[in-house]
């Protein structure tokens, strides 16, 4: 039983990270109906930015409180990663809006290849390890919970609350939801559609950057190729929860996290990615609208 709860805790941690990335997929898909294939690499860029900021902080200050360091890493990563996603949207996706549907998917794949190889070329192909930032572990009734895991869950919950507020209670969120329902009508009613879409990309990227920072803190290592697999898993999470739905993305992320940690614990760690991909296939085939999504109505 303790082993099971332990896995549950691990799954919650993983799931939080997947959920944060999944929100970026789901928001972009909701508003312009494209799979932002480069989003996994945006996450990787976030982790890498955090790594570089961590090294800068280490070089500038002899010692700095961990909370402050994490906060600075997170904020710089959010800013820079948002700038990347904003630029990518502007350069590679916006000109193709209204073109045939495959076009933005192809540029997104191209961007994904370009981004990961950009990091490989500029930062080198090796794994980049950092010394552990937070190492305290608590023992709660036989279950070990590390401070890292607590930080991840707290940050995730706080950010989700903030984003829930942004999307549901502000005029920005209203504009987003309007664009999601009918872009042309929203434009006619005075919503600046381009700006709203840009902000959506910025929001998605900043959440991915936070996920990247947390990923770096949790695993202590990042490489240029780390974007693809978490990206696909987060996309799975978004689809599982019902693409276009924010709570769905979080729910899906948590489910993928749980399934992955349980699978690694009870079956085989080699095949854990096979499990994730199989779930993706099964969900899409049997439950294409996801758990919380609206079924798509086909009009002839």
């Amino acid at each position, binding site marked *: 039983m303790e082993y099971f709860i332990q896995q549950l805790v691990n799954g919650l941690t993983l799931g939080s990270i997947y959920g944060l990335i999944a929100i970026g997929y789901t928001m972009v898909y909701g508003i312009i109906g494209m*799979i932002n294939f480069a989003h996994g690499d945006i996450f990787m860029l976030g982790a890498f930015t955090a790594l570089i900021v961590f090294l800068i902080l280490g070089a500038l200050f002899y010692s700095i409180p961990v909370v402050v360091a994490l906060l600075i890493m997170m904020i710089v990563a959010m800013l820079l990663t948002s700038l990347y996603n904003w630029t990518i949207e502007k350069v590679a996706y916006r000109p193709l809006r209204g073109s045939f549907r495959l076009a933005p998917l192809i540029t997104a794949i191209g961007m994904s290849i370009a981004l990961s190889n950009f990091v490989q070329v500029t930062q080198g192909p090796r794994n980049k390890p950092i010394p552990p930032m937070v190492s305290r572990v608590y023992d709660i009734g036989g279950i070990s919970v590390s401070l890292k895991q607590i930080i991840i869950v707290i940050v995730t919950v706080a950010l989700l609350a903030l984003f829930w507020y942004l999307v549901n209670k502000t005029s920005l969120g209203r504009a987003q939801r309007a664009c999601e329902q009918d872009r042309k009508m929203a434009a006619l009613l005075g919503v600046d559609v381009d700006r709203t879409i840009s902000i959506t990309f910025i929001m998605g990227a900043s959440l991915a950057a936070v996920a990247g920072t947390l990923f770096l803190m949790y695993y202590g290592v990042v490489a240029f190729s780390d974007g693809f697999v978490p990206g696909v898993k987060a996309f799975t999470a978004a689809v599982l929860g019902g693409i276009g739905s924010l709570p769905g993305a979080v729910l899906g992320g948590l489910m993928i996290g749980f399934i992955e940690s349980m699978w690694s614990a009870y079956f085989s760690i080699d095949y854990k990615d096979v499990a994730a991909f199989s779930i993706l296939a099964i969900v899409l085939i049997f439950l294409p609208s996801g758990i919380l999504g609206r079924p798509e109505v086909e009009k002839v």
Partner: protein
Amino acid sequence: MAAITTSAPAAALNPIEQGMKEAFYAGVIAFGLFVLFIGLKTDQNISNELILVQRWGLLAIIVIIVMAVRFLYVAFALPALASRKAAKAAAPVVAAEPGFLGRNLSQISIVLLFLFPVVAIWLSGLQGSLKWIDNFGIQILIYVMLAWGLNIVVGLAGLLDLGYVAFYAVGAYAYALIGTYLYAVLPPEYAWMAFWILLPSAGIMAAFWGVILGFPVLRLRGDYLAIVTLAFGEIIRLVLINWREVTNGSAGISGIPKVEFFGWFTFNVSDPNYIAKVFELPTSSVYYKIFLYYLILLLCLLTAYVTIRLRRMPVGRAWEAMREDEIACRSLGINTTTTKLTAFATGAMFAGFAGSFFAARQGFVSPESFVFIESAIILAIVVLGGMGSLIGIAFAALAMIGGTEILRELQFLKQVFGPDFTPELYRMLLFGMAMVIVMLWKPRGFVGSREPTAFLRERRAVSASFTKEGHG
């Protein structure tokens, strides 16, 4: 006045001023994007700790380049494009009669392809031609074949497949495992048959897998289909990595036998009927490459021939009808289930052929060769070439694969950028950027029109803008 819009003040600036302004913004953005990634480099020091290396000079150069490009684009390229467009709109539309080259492009290309090894040997000698025939000729033709195979699925049937490389892997592993076995058990005088038995069987096996993987995804359309096929592709690769008893895991299978020329002569130096001994030629590994070159060329031509014939057959017309409108297709009594499955199976079969050829050529297979990026590259070639257009796809493969291969040859850049500069590293970066740029420039691919196979009274090319894609 229609000209009064929100962008009127911006339009009032002359192109040079506009260019300066845009260049400034571009510089600021580029600085923001690159300050951490180019300005600093994470490196490991002797005690294996990460340290930062500063590269501000490089950052400055890159930012200035970005600004200059943006300035030239806004100040000169955009006005030039706009005036050309205006001139084009003003001029009466004259349907350009294709010249001799345009009319006979495919015949000329085929002749050139058959002459290519001869020219390569003539220009760079027996050993020097090895690189050209192997790295360029065979490599590009493999991608042409794969892209033509995928074209059946994506271009004709409109089913977006991101896991195509899985079938390539099936073909390669089929030859690597069964071919090696057959080669060992067949009596030596018949051992040459191993490849020729396995080539069609690998195709059939891959087609079979195409049906197996196609079956569950029949209900899916568009993006979702793409993602599920991606998942299948990854699952097959992960199984190849983890099923170590059979596939030897990520170490791969080596020592795959070479193809022999129907038992007449072989390409192993130690064999009694080695080609150089049979024909009294100097010993060289280039003969094998030339043989492989013609083999893959014939396989490519087979793919093209089958595609062209299939397009005229009921099944091909059903594919294209399904691409355009699945519901209309179904209401006209076309069985979309079999139509989709035949498309998956036919496409997969060619990937299987290419796979077993690949295994025979390399003599080594490992899961590394079948990563998602390969599927993405093949799909990019199909889309960039103009989906459905065989000749466009062939030229896209030439540009994308040949272009990235040529980077290996640019050793003179070392003199410009210093000895640490390795152009190969930039291959995939440039490939990704080329994908984006070509897509922005020509969203419909190099060849943007289709020759209809069924027409009313007169044959007219259909602009690809009127055809749909990927909804199946």
